[in-house]
């Protein structure tokens, strides 16, 4: 029974990791190409979730909702890139932090204005309801497995996009020298809008997928945003590979910590105390891991650039 539980928790960790990867990939891409730190990325996640919930409840189709989440997040992303973000590329990080902090206030309050303070709920689509038997005698939710699969597909797709396509070539060129590719005739401001919208769409997708597991509400993006920051700091800012590795590390360490620490502590102290202390320590665990990794590799595991 313990093996089945362990496998289940590992899969949960992987699912969290995959979801964090969708967030972190966009963040790290935007930082790598434009040198921008975007706090409003969590709001795009929230927008994806709301778009999916609203469209799914209006049409009855989760799949239409999923498409709506991509369109809405990419659309809002492109809009704020053109209206605000574009003015921030030449500014220092402090201005970027504050302007995107202001965007969070605007988008969160705007969402509360439109949709109210009560959470919305999304149903798991019929096709993906049910559970899959696990080796060792347990069962696992099919939908969570599907999220893991989506994450793997996106990771492969991003790799192919960046390594094999013309757009990817331009993105890589933009990372190494933006003036040079502008001089070669690439429309750099359109490229930036496309990259930002792509990152936004990934965040929106993550929000929609997770929306069916939790409730959809204002502020849902913020805890995820901060975990995604931990991910890209661990992985190395600007590196997609680093984001993938970092996301899996954070997802698995966080989930396994919450699962194992209380029972480990129970070996040495009374059970009630072990649960409390274990839960408190587990909530800090990923930050300890991050500090340890940074103590040895100050620019992350896969530092893309100095």
């Amino acid at each position, binding site marked *: 029974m313990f093996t089945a539980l362990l496998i289940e928790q590992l899969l949960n960790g992987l699912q969290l990791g995959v979801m964090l990867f969708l967030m972190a990939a966009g963040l790290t891409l935007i930082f790598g190409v434009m040198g921008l730190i975007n706090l409003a990325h969590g709001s795009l996640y929230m927008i994806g979730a709301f778009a999916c919930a609203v469209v799914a409840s209006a049409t009855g189709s989760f799949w239409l909702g999923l498409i709506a989440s991509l369109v809405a997040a990419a659309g809002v992303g492109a809009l704020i890139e053109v209206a605000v973000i574009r003015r921030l590329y030449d500014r220092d990080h402090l201005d970027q932090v504050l302007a995107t902090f202001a965007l969070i206030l605007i988008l969160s309050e705007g969402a509360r204005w439109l949709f109210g303070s009560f959470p919305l709920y999304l149903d798991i689509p019929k096709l993906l309801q049910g559970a899959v038997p696990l080796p060792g005698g347990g069962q696992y939710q099919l939908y969570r497995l599907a999220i893991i699969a989506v994450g793997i597909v996106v990771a492969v797709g991003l790799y192919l996009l960046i390594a094999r396509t013309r757009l990817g070539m331009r993105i890589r060129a933009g990372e190494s020298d933006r003036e040079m590719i502008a001089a070669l005739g690439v429309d750099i401001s359109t490229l930036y809008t496309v990259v930002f919208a792509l990152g936004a769409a990934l965040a929106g997708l993550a929000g929609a997928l997770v929306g069916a597991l939790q409730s959809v509400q204002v502020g849902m993006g913020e805890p995820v945003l901060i975990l995604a*920051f931990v991910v890209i700091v661990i992985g190395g800012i600007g590196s997609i590979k680093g984001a993938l590795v970092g996301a899996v590390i954070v997802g698995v360490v966080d989930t396994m910590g919450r699962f194992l620490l209380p029972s480990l502590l129970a070996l040495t102290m009374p059970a009630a105390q072990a649960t409390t202390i274990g839960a408190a320590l587990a909530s800090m665990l990923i930050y300890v891991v991050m*500090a340890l990794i940074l103590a040895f590799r100050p620019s992350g595991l896969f530092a893309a650039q100095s």
Partner: protein
Amino acid sequence: MTRETAINLLLAALLLALPLIAAGIGEPFYVTLATRVVVLALAAVGLNLALGLGGLLSFGHAAFFGLGGYAAGILATHAFNAEPLFAGIPGTTSMPLIWLVAIAVAGLVALPIGAISLRTTGVYFIMITLAFAQMIYYFAISWPAYGGEDGLSIYVRNSFPGLNTAQPLPYFLICFAVLIAALLLFRLIEGSRFGSAVQAARQNGVRLAAVGIPPFRIRLVAFVLSAMITGLAGALYADLNRFVGPSMLSWHMSGELMVLIILGGKGRLFGPVAGAMIFVCLEYVLGGITERWQFFLGLILLGIVLFARGGFLGLLSGKPRHV
């Protein structure tokens, strides 16, 4: 006297006079509002030391603000329940003692956080300080002994020898005096050899190292001092609200402290004071007009960041000397 000094004196006089008048005409609410301005300004003076002078973009100062608050809350709770803290040490309701503990706790926690975070620069530093603050935030939420998610109430405001702190005006005066002391300290540091080194570390760390001063140590001391001032502000804030909760530790608080400095003017002595005055006024005025005040606050903030660089003091008194 430069124009900036004149504006600074005017701001200080305004901040002192308005609550005195409000108390005189029997409007204690405005005294409390002014106390909020003073305490937030004090927290931002602390951050200004790291951010303005040292160029260290700490996105985690809520951690120190909250720790100061929890120091006040925990000591007061133990004194109230007459339970010893640990090893027979009793709690206390004496403000000066609580302040010392808050300052010490903030400094002791800032030391390892700074030592790890300052190994990195730029955007890494922003995110790591944020992550450490979140770590403490989640710890406070999941640790049930001192209220967990619900926070901790301070039933009776802590005491200060010779003054009745339960009245709004005496408490305002205490906080105002602490703020003035912190501003004097900031001025003293800014003009000292250490302050020059901190500013040199911001402008060019390599050159500072070349003249034989290790920038890491200078930055670390500045970071710890900055955390101590913000921690003290946290203790005052807890006593102001008679409540301390995880929201004081949240990253919104860190963002707000940065906003105060930018609103007022980064690296300027009275920047945090002007920023806190504007922020609390906006909050109060917008909050009175519409429930959706955060939406408009966001728009105003966005406008200021994009179009009015240098903040309020920059607008009024031109370029600062140190740029």
